[in-house]
């Protein structure tokens, strides 16, 4: 074998090794779990919700970075975890800014902002535990929902305790005496309100992941306004209440929180690890 032939063979071997290394690398990257990013432009709420739900159902943690416009004007940047997404709205929990309702419904005053770009990071579950508990409506009066959070908030490392429910104010008289826009404006002052309907003798408020203090404060404020306007309230109505507790996985024992929630009447407790 000549010297040239030997060199060619050596070069061939080196090339084979390079190709093999690349193939092994690609195969390794494909099977190793890693973070994935979805860059979603515009306010495509259905696409965002579908990506969130399909990722969450596979056990991934979903974190978001959002750029958009405030409802009141001006731009914003927020980041945090998705706590709720449906075909019209996205509820984001930003540790700095709190609960934000994002939607493409520009005409609803309780929408905090309209997203223009969303970077969705989907990764392995990590240091946050989300505990969802369902509490029957008979357990508590609608105007004292915040008391539900006093028990879980006793645990150290609890990031947030959020309340979701549909509540209603049933009036003695028809609400023609109170402008619907007034009720909408009162609701806009609170975070996590996704729908307010005023019709006939009723006001219906859909709350999704409202900070505990805000949940009953809104109802009390509406009742106070109605009474000052001379409209008597016949009753307050509530559907089943969902309590969501976000905790630090390292410091809080999820089972202990679940046990405490059961003591206050919670049913169907679900624990999920997030990023």
């Amino acid at each position, binding site marked *: 074998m000549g010297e040239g032939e030997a060199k060619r063979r050596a070069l061939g071997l080196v090339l084979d090794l390079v190709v093999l290394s690349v193939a092994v690398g690609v195969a390794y990257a494909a099977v190793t779990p890693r973070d994935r990013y979805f860059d979603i432009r515009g306010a495509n709420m*259905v696409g965002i919700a579908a990506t969130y739900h399909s990722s969450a159902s596979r056990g991934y943690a979903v974190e978001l970075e959002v750029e958009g416009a405030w409802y009141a004007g001006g731009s914003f940047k927020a980041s945090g975890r998705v706590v709720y997404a449906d*075909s019209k709205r996205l509820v984001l929990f930003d540790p700095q800014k709190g609960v934000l309702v994002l939607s493409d419904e520009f005409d609803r005053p309780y929408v905090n902002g309209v997203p223009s770009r969303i970077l969705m990071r989907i990764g392995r579950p990590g240091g946050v535990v989300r505990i969802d508990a369902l509490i029957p409506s008979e357990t508590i009066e609608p105007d004292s929902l915040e008391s539900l959070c006093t028990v879980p908030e006793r645990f150290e490392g609890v990031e947030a305790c959020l309340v979701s429910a*549909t509540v*209603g104010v*049933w009036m003695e008289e028809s609400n023609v005496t109170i402008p619907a826009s007034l009720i909408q404006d009162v609701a806009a002052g609170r975070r996590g309100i996704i729908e307010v309907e005023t019709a006939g003798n*009723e006001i219906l408020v859909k709350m999704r992941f409202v900070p505990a203090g805000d949940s009953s404060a809104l109802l009390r404020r509406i009742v106070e306004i109605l009474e000052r306007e001379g409209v008597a309230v016949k009753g307050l109505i509530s559907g089943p209440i969902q309590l969501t507790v976000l905790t630090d996985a390292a410091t809080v024992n999820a089972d202990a929180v679940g046990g405490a929630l059961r003591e206050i009447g919670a049913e169907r407790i679900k624990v999920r690890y997030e990023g």
Partner: protein
Amino acid sequence: MESDRALRLLGVALDVLVVTAAVGVAYMKVNAHSYYRGDVRSGQSAAYIANFYRSRGYSLRGGILGVHVNGTLINSTGFVLDSARATIYFSAGGDVFLVYSSDQKVRDPLPQEVDPLRLTLRVDRNVDRLLVSLDPLWTDGLDDLISKVEEVAGVVSSGGVDYELFVSFKLHGGGLSEAIRGNEVPIYWLQSEVNEECSGLFLFVGSTVAPFYLVVENMNWRDLTKLDSILRKWLPADAREMLAYDIRVKVVFDRPPSAGEKAAIYEAVSSLEGVRYAKFMVEFRG
């Protein structure tokens, strides 16, 4: 001479080709109006397609990938049960969704349910459905109506073909009207609770100058007990005696029943007391 024969044969062959092409084009034209298979993202387009084919007596089935307004991902196969101006009622896994998309310019005055990312529709002509119309009946809550629907279901199931059953009806009563007018019932709350808990659509209709009545559209019959318990929770006792009218029971079979099975089902259903008529059809149109 030989070349003349070849020329004639070529002419005949060309004629055959032209006739075949003409028949083919005519066949395709006819079928083009009776066949649809495709994906849509817009609820309004879906409603248009459904209305077009349903009005010509064809059924549609397919799959939906979308997000429910209550925040759940829907990824199911099913069929179009009904359609309105700009909405379709899509049944999947025993549930009934109203399909709306956020890009719709025309909206029916109905609660939005599922916004589709992809809706696959296909005309399905190999279908047999049964529409049963019932005479009005007095019912306490929904007791008597539920018994009557169960009676129809029992008879249909004796035919031996698996099926799903949906009910549409209206409810009216003097006590009910009085209770709503007298503010004894939080009617919007009731409407919202039923639409959250039950399939199909629940509405109340009326005003201070017209009698109130309740409308139930395309509800899976398994949800009637749930609807009854919600009505009992909110309606005062003297408002629960109501007249159920305009009752239509829609039966969707898993496979088309044979001629013998159809005859047996038709005879058994028609002989039930209170059945106004029963008819087999490809699509519900009346």
